[in-house]
């Protein structure tokens, strides 16, 4: 049992540490004051989403190579978990923005890019539901998924950086030192374990979703 559960326990320990020590670690005096602690939680949603999208992308490539339905299953379930993270990232960001910028949404390349990124993957889910034949669905959506991943990277990671003027940290020429590489050493001791914890939590949810999906198709086989 401990063989299968060790990384799930690790996820719990990492996140518990992040939730407790994340409130005690000293944060520097900046304009955003104590809200900088949101970094351990809000950014974790995007690390979680990006990890899930990478998994989905890899499994779509694998599907197109071997046409195994198991690969298609991983691709869709990873997008589902990724979308959960994405919406939590957007909503948590809106709360943070309300207190930092005075409004939940500013016309900002990073925010708009993240919203477009969500739409791209919602389209993936809709595309899948519109194809009846499951092999055709797997093939069409795997091809779309490869484009979706590239577009997501362009909209969320590249374009906001090129845009120049952005309020959101880690974009253009925003000097706010909250990116991991500029992180204050003390905050790093919480930031990196927290990111690992969020990614592991997403992986756990992903494995459960995959297993449920497998059970469902087993049942369908029995009924046919």
């Amino acid at each position: 049992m401990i063989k299968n559960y060790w990384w799930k326990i690790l996820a719990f320990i990492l996140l518990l540490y992040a939730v407790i020590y994340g409130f005690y670690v000293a944060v520097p005096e900046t304009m955003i004051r104590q809200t900088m602690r949101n970094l351990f939680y809000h950014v974790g949603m995007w690390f979680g989403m990006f990890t899930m999208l990478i998994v989905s992308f890899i499994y779509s490539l694998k599907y197109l190579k071997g046409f195994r339905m198991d690969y298609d299953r991983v691709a869709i379930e990873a997008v589902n978990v990724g979308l959960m993270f994405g919406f939590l990232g957007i909503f948590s960001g809106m709360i943070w923005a309300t207190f930092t910028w005075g409004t939940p949404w500013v016309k900002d390349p990073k925010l708009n890019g993240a919203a477009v990124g969500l739409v791209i993957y919602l389209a993936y889910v809709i595309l899948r539901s519109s194809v009846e034949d499951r092999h055709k669905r797997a093939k069409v959506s795997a091809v779309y998924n490869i484009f979706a991943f590239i577009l997501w990277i362009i909209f969320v990671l590249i374009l906001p950086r090129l845009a120049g003027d952005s309020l959101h940290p880690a974009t253009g020429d925003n000097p706010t030192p909250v990116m991991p590489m500029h992180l204050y050493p003390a905050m790093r001791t919480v930031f990196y374990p927290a990111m690992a914890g969020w990614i592991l939590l997403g992986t756990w949810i992903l494995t459960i979703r995959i297993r449920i999906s497998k059970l469902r198709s087993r049942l369908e086989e029995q009924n046919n």
Partner: protein
Amino acid sequence: METYGKIFVVVAVLAVILTGVFVYLFFIDRKVGKLEREIREKENPKER
């Protein structure tokens, strides 16, 4: 602690919620495991 203005109460609440979510996830995980075993036994009754 004084400078934090009883923030430890919030930390405790968050810790309890996080623990609750993980315990819940653990039970879902076990439930799926049980279903997997049931289906396996149904498909291969001789294995029992």
